[in-house]
Structures are given as C-alpha cells and as structure tokens.
C-alpha cells in the first residue's frame, strides 16, 4: 500500500489554495479497510463515478403503460454521499435499480466508472454488479445462513478462495461491530443488527459504490442514526461513494453531501444539501424540509406580535444561517448599525451533515427604509432571508 503525497489545486473539496493530498495507489487486498484520509482526491482519474443520461423507464403493464422515470440526468461524484429523496411512487426505487440494471432502462444510459451498463453482456454485468454493493429496506438476509455465511455469500458468488474469504468476513464483521454474532441466524437479530450484516455483505467485494434502498426506513430513529453514522464512517474511511434513496429528509440532512429531489418521475431539483435546506427551489423540497425543521411561527406568537406593537412599522422575517455565519453576531451588528428593534419570535439550530444550520424568525420594528436597509445588510452578510409578512402598521388593524 503506497500513499503518494502530491499537490494539486483541483478538486471539489480543496478550496482555492493548493493543498497536499494523499493519493492512494495501494493494491486491493484484505487491508482495504485501512482508512484513507478524509479529503482524498483521486488525481488523474475522472471525478464523476456514476453518470445517468436521459434515463427513461416505462413499465408495460396492462391496460396502460406506466412511466416510472422520465428524462433523468444525474451525476454522482467519487467519494460523495448522494441522496435521492421522493415520496413513495415518485420513482426513486426504480431509479436506484436502474443504476445496477436490476431494472433495464427503457432509454438513456447509466455509466459507472466509464462503463456503460447497457453495453455489458450477462457475464460482464454480473462482474460489474459485484463491484456495486446494495443494501435494502427489508435487509434481505438469507434465513438459511448465519451471519458469517451471509457475509460470505457475495464472496462465494465472486469465487474468492475460502481461506481468504473467511478472513475478509471476520474483518467486515469486526468493522460493523458484530463479531460476537457470527454464528447467529438473522432471525435472532434486531433490525439495526440485520442492516449492519447487510452493510458488511454489501462491502464484501470491495465495491466502487454502495446503493442504499431505503436502508433505514424500517428502523427506529436511534437505530437510523447509528446506521447513518456507520455509512458516513465507511464513506470517510474507505472513500466509498454512496447513493441512497429515502423519503425521509432527516436521512438527507444527517448523511448526504448532495441531494436530488424526485417528483412525478422527474428530477425537480439537484444541489448541495445545505443550499437546498437554506433555499429550496421547489414546493416539494420545501415540504420535505418543513416536515423536519419547524419553521412555522406558532399562531399564538404571531398573534402576540400583532397585538403588542401599536405604533411602529414592523416586518416579520425568517433568517437562515449556514455554517460559519451561524457563529457570527450578525444580528447584533445589524442592531448596532441601524436604529431598529428586533424581536426574536422563534429560533432553532440544527445540523445538516456536519454543518450547523439555524433559522430565526424575527420581527423587525422601526422606520421602513431602515428595515429594508437592515435586511440588505443581512443578505450581504450571507444570510438567507425570507419575508413572512411585509411591513405593516399595527395601528391600522
């Protein structure tokens, strides 16, 4: 295993200044689970791992055809956790199955690591699938095999010699924290443990990408968090690309770097999770976000705001903070700079993946030009502002 230290200015995560990066050129072996540095850039290789081009899937069911996916184009970068969120029936399950060609697209292409999946024959497709791990909502473990042999299963399929395979299984079980359950049958495991076995199984053949089909949807919130932690850990330490589908914005919030929103068989929005959280471009995205982050001002607070201020113009705004700006006293600076008052009606702070994300509902009171200037000031300082209620005179109500 060799790590070469190189210098480069390119790469999505390295910022504008050249930074030394670690380049992994090791041979794939049982040592594969050795951590790879977090911000690892695969110099000289394509940045994009999965490319989906104009993908359409039509199911020919009687009496009518059902269009499950329409003109989907997406690309997934190496080493990222890419989320696809949609309501049930939106087509996300079909989409993830098109990636490993469990469903054959009606038209369009899926290109993984430069390989067009449609161009492969049966044998080549099987080999390609060995390098695409998949985990499932219902875990799909074999009840006829114990934990150890379940993880052994993909290695048998790939024809790995038994001693080598056994060593790999032990390593994987250790990795997911189930070494003590090796001889236990799936029926005796909890949901979270089953999914850990599923993850170990999916990693056995050292895949290029891990597909997660609603992997946490059958789990309780705590277990969901621990499984997502494990996935993030795998992503960080192995540099493994993960594509996950979910209907739960919490999963996107906690684990994903980028997200695609799928609605009515098409992708309606793609972007950084943070920017979609702070500035959702579609109603469907907004509804997913609102389902998990309380943004609505409670009725009684709104009512109080209306009744207590009787002389001034006031405006109700919502301010979103992301990352670094969450730590700066922007509001306090604003109040010092402009002769207005601010009444905090509601606020909360959350995390999107590892970045703090907060929102605050403020009632700004004072002269109208000053309020407008203050809002511009907030925008200049990188805060997202949404006006909930325009300036109004309390006295007229």
């Amino acid at each position, binding site marked *: 295993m060799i790590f070469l230290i190189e210098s480069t200015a390119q790469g999505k995560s390295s910022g504008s200044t050249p930074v030394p990066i670690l380049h992994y050129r090791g041979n794939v072996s049982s040592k594969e689970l050795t951590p790879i540095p977090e911000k690892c850039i695969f110099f000289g290789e394509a940045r994009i791992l999965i490319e989906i081009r104009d993908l359409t899937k039509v199911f020919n069911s009687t009496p009518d055809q059902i269009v499950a996916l329409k003109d989907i184009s997406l690309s997934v970068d190496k080493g990222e956790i890419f989320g696809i969120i949609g309501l049930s029936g939106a087509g996300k399950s079909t989409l993830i199955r098109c990636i490993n060609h469990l469903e054959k697209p009606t038209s369009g292409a899926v290109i993984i690591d430069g390989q067009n999946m449609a161009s492969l024959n049966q044998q080549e497709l099987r080999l390609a*699938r060995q390098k695409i791990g998949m985990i499932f909502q219902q875990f799909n473990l074999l009840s006829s095999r114990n934990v150890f042999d379940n993880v052994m299963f*993909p290695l048998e399929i790939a024809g790995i010699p038994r001693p080598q395979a056994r060593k790999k299984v032990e390593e994987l079980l250790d990795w997911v924290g189930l070494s003590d359950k090796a001889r236990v049958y799936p029926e005796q495991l909890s949901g979270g443990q089953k999914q850990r076995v599923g993850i170990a199984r999916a990693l056995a053949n050292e895949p290029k990408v891990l597909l997660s089909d609603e992997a946490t949807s059958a789990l309780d919130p705590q277990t969901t968090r621990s499984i997502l932690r494990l996935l993030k850990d795998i992503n960080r330490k192995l540099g493994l690309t993960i594509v996950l589908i979910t209907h739960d914005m919490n999963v996107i919030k906690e684990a994903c770097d980028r997200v695609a929103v799928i609605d009515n068989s098409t992708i309606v929005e793609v972007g950084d999770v943070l920017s979609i959280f702070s500035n959702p471009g579609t109603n469907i995205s907004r509804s997913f976000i609102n389902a998990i982050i309380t943004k609505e001002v409670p009725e009684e607070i709104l009512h109080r705001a209306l009744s207590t201020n009787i002389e001034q113009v006031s405006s109700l705004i919502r301010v979103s903070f992301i990352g670094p700006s969450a730590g700066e006293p922007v509001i306090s600076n604003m109040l010092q700079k402009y002769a207005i008052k601010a009444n905090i009606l509601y606020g909360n702070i959350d995390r999107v993946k590892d970045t703090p994300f907060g929102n605050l509902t403020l009632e700004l009171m004072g002269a109208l030009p000053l309020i407008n200037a203050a809002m511009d000031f907030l925008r200049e300082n990188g805060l997202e502002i949404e006006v909930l209620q325009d300036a109004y005179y309390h006295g007229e109500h």
Partner: protein
Amino acid sequence: MHIIMGSIDISLLVTSWLGDNNGMFQAVLQASWETIYMVAISTALSYLIGLPLAVVLVITGEGHILENQPLNRTLGSLVNATRSLPFIILLILAIPLTRWIVGTSIGTVASIVPLSLAAAPFVARLVEASLKEIDWGLIEAALSMGASSRQIIRKVLIPEALPSIVLGVSITAINLVGYSAMAGILGGGGLGTLAYYHGYMRYQTEVMWITVVVLIILVQGIQVLGNKISARVLNKRR
C-alpha cells in the same frame, strides 16, 4: 367398527391371531417392507423429476430470473395434463413404458414406474409453491451481488425453501402410500396386494384390518418424521 374404536381389542386380536399364523405374520412383514420400499424409491424418483421441473416452472415464470413464457406455459400444461389423469388410468397407460424400462409390468419394482410418474407433476406443483413463497427481495439481493441463475437456485431458492420442501416430501410420501395400494391391486405388491388378495378375495377380514393398522402407523410415522425434520431445519435458523 367396534374393532377400530378400542385399541385393546385390536392388539388382543393381533397377538392371538399372530400366535397361530406365523406365516401370515411373515406375509404382512414382507408386504409392509415392499410398500416402504416402493414409496421410498418412488418418492425419491418423483423428486428427481419434480424438483428440477418446479425450479424451471418458477424461474421461467413472469418477471423471474430466466423468464420464458412459452416454455413456462408448455411445461405448465404438461404438468396439469398429467395431474388430471386418475391414477388408476395412468397405471394402465404406463404399462408399455413400465415393460420397456423394467421388463415386466408386475411386481414391486414395476410399480415404481407409474408411482414416480404420477407423483412427479404433483411434486413439481408442491415444490413450485414452496419456491414461490420466497421473498423476491432475497433473489434481488443475490442478483445485485452478481449471482448467476445457477447460484441463485442452489444458494437461495432451494436452501430458503427447504423447510417447506421437506414438509412437501412427507405429503408426497403419504400420497404414494395410497397410490401404492392401488398399484397393489393390479399386482404391484406390498400391502395393497395383501389386502386385496387375502383380505378381500379370500375373505380374511383380519388381514384387511391388520393392513389398515399398518398403513395408519406408516402414514403417521411419515408425517411425524417430516414434521420433525422440517422443524429441525427451521429451529436451526432461529
């Protein structure tokens, strides 16, 4: 009827009767052995034919791993056609085939041919039902790992359906006990021949009843054994 009701009556009858009829006892023993032999071999043969047939029926079905509608429909019709033949008719129809395979159409070995032939399509449907119980997710998981059809059959379909398949084996064997008695009437040997020639033709009612008792024990035994094995396979997984 009153003989069946009280088990003491039967055992008394059997012991006293056996005392004076050592020859008859030997005949019952011989016939029981023949029945067990016929049933065991034809169960094995019917699975040899029926199990692959079931696998093909399942995997060529709609949306399955080797979908092939024409083949699926042809096999399905063939299985249905064979199953719709009453066994007694099949026995007669199979005589030329039996002669060709065994050399004779009479005796224990000869009965195995029509018995296996009759049970095979039944087994095919039975195993097909067991295989169809398997959650599609398991097959999908295996496909996602790059498993071949052969690997899916051997490592997913059969092992996952095994407890259910084992229960099917006892159902088949019990059916074959009944069929073997019918074959016995056409000179097939075993308990059927004994009951028919001695019990019915020669009015040896006690032979008839002993046959009935032996058959009940046999059927009960097969069922208990099947349940035990299936439960053991299942329990191992719990």
